[in-house]
């Protein structure tokens, strides 16, 4: 899974994550995803999806 320089989820992992969500009945986003700005954007995007 692609990561940021702070070793957190990066925006480029979006596609992989979305693929995984299709196989799941429930999705838990967090905890512990860090305060990294790029990861924050990913979280905002995923929570809208």
């Amino acid at each position: 899974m692609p990561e940021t320089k702070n070793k957190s989820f990066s925006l480029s992992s979006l596609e992989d994550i979305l693929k995984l969500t299709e196989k799941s009945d429930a999705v838990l986003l967090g905890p512990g995803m860090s305060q990294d700005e790029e990861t924050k954007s990913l979280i905002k995007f995923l929570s809208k999806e």
Partner: protein
Amino acid sequence: MFGIGFHGIMPEFYRKTIDLINKSEKPVISLDIPSGINADTGQIESSAVKAGLTITMELPKPGLFLPPAIDFTGKLEIAKLGYPPEITNNPELLINLLEEKDILPLIPSWPASAHKGSRGKILIIAGSKNYIGAPFLAAASGH
């Protein structure tokens, strides 16, 4: 000794008195709030009475449920003073408290014959460098 307006450091006399109460091994009942607790934040800056029972007046104070004060509240009872509904139903004063009884009905029960495949799949997107404990606990509770 001290009420809901209390914050800051208390004089030594009161600290010693609280110490005596807490070591007395007698039933301790606090009225409104255990002395020494900050009613808004739950902070204890010097010392606080450790109550077995707190009888709070009309509206429970947030500090009674917050750490570290939550271990000093004991069992909580609410005494109605007859406040008008304009106060007790004032949306600005109302705070939600999540309790065990709110959560438990949301957890479905499963037949004893259920196996891991029959309970669905959860995807947990969590953790980062240095933050591995909470995702582990999340995964464990999904198990």
